[in-house]
């Protein structure tokens, strides 16, 4: 199959460091293969910039196969670009037209400050996880095999679906309120649905929501944008589940 190439214009957010003021810069990039991924296109741009003795564009990436949650980018007004159910590394240049102008911006949220160019600090997510997104299993050698606890298939599937969240932050980026509810609800749900997680369910949801609020994320207004843009298709049902879990926890707090 013969590969097609396109010429594109790029408008990319450039910011030297966390303290400097950034701006949108325009670049022209020719001969981009439509079979290349969006990140490969950025690699090509950086090669061009290095050859011109210019500072390459900093952007997050790691596995480049859609499972690590490292890549981000707000492309043409949408998190992870115009495609559905994919991360930016899985987005292909065939989704763009020849001569098109493509806007590339970092995730925008108070809780996700820009470090450099398109790289943002997503450690707020780590702190939310550390606040309660775990099971305090006794690891002194007398733990039992998880598979000895019976779990219904339907519950297990829901927990697994919630656990597919890769923590990329697209939900925050796309939400008009920069709310982290989809992420936090997925992390609450994956444990609340399983017997191992239910032991600490009340304190977990209280602690994780408290941390979420402290990080400066906005509130959920149920627009549903996060569910649409989530590369893993995490459902709004998880947010409702977290709302239930939290209600249970504050009504029947110890």
């Amino acid at each position, binding site marked *: 199959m013969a590969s097609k190439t396109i010429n594109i214009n790029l*408008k990319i957010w450039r910011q030297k460091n966390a303290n400097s003021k950034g701006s949108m810069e325009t670049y022209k990039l020719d001969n981009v293969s439509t079979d290349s991924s969006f990140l490969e296109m950025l690699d090509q741009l950086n090669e061009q910039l290095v050859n011109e003795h210019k500072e390459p564009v900093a952007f997050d990436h790691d596995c480049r196969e859609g499972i690590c949650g490292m890549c981000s980018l707000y492309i043409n*007004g949408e998190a992870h670009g115009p495609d559905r159910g994919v991360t930016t590394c899985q987005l292909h240049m065939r989704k763009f037209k020849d001569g098109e102008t493509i806007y590339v911006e970092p995730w*925008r949220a108070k809780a996700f400050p820009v470090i450099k160019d398109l790289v943002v600090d997503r450690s707020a997510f780590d702190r939310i996880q550390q606040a309660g997104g775990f099971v305090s299993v006794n690891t002194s050698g007398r733990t039992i095999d998880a598979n000895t606890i019976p779990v219904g298939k339907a519950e297990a599937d829901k927990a697994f679906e919630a656990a597919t969240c890769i923590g990329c932050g697209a939900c925050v980026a796309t939400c008009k309120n920069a709310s982290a509810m989809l992420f936090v609800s997925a992390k609450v749900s994956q444990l609340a649905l399983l017997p191992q997680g239910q032991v600490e369910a009340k304190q977990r949801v*209280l602690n994780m929501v408290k941390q979420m609020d402290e990080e400066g994320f*906005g509130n959920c207004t149920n627009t549903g944008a996060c569910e649409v843009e989530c590369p893993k298709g995490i459902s709004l049902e998880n947010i409702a589940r*977290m709302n239930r879990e*939290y*209600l249970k926890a504050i009504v029947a707090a110890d």
Partner: protein
Amino acid sequence: MSKSGIFTSSLAKKYWMALTGLFLITFLIGHLLGNLQLITKTGEEGRRAFNEYAYFMGHNIFIKILAYATYISILAHACLGLYLAVKNKQARPQKYAHNRPGANSGTASRYMAILGTAILIFICTHMANFWYKQKVAETVPLHYVEVKKVQQGQDPMTGQQITQEYTEIQALTTMGVYFPIGYINPQTHEKEIQIKPEGTKFKDPQSGLVAAEGYKDLHTVVMNFFGQSQQGQPTNQLAVWAVIGYVISMFVLMFHLWHGFVSAFQSLGLNHRKYNKLISVVGKAFAVVVPLLFAIIPVIIYLNR
């Protein structure tokens, strides 16, 4: 945690938004059923039914409790909503240079704060036009009717049998009967009120005891406001604008409910595959039908002017 968490956390604020919102949705049903009497019944019968209903709504203790719950809900829903809107704006200090929110969310869902603010302005004008006049300013006239009467008698000079026509003024009282309080002078055509009300109360001139209580004529105030000329009261010259403003406000309410009804259930955690379809269909139907029924009432009053 539990004590303060009920009010301070982001999720708890959403519960209060949902609970007050759902309460106000039930309030809309009651308000609509009351308003529909304005067009379902006509003439003196309709006027009487509406004024009696308004009196009942203002005096029944159970309704009074609901009314205070409604005032508190409106204030809480508006204040909390505006607070959340400001907080949500602050959560993204730097805007996107290029954003396509329409690609992943409904329009109504993104403009709830603006729609809500518009509704709040409507509620303020609405209460100034009707609620304030009825409850605070006491500028609503009492429910009077003019009844033509024929008096038979003898002329004291000639001894001839004479019939005299005159118009009696009667007040509708809470006892359910029309109570004569005066007449129209046949010579001067001026109203001669013999029993003047104090507020809504008619007192016995001798004993000073309250003999009867009249109904406020809110029906006539509403009819005049939307362009009808009734009971000799001046018609609102700006009635056409009142009708247009009212109809636009109901469209705003429609969009607010389009997202708000379903959203309230999600905020309270009531999201289940079995019931989502039902909640969505009922919510969207409610969002369209209720504001539409509200809106046709002033239109019909105006067209029948």
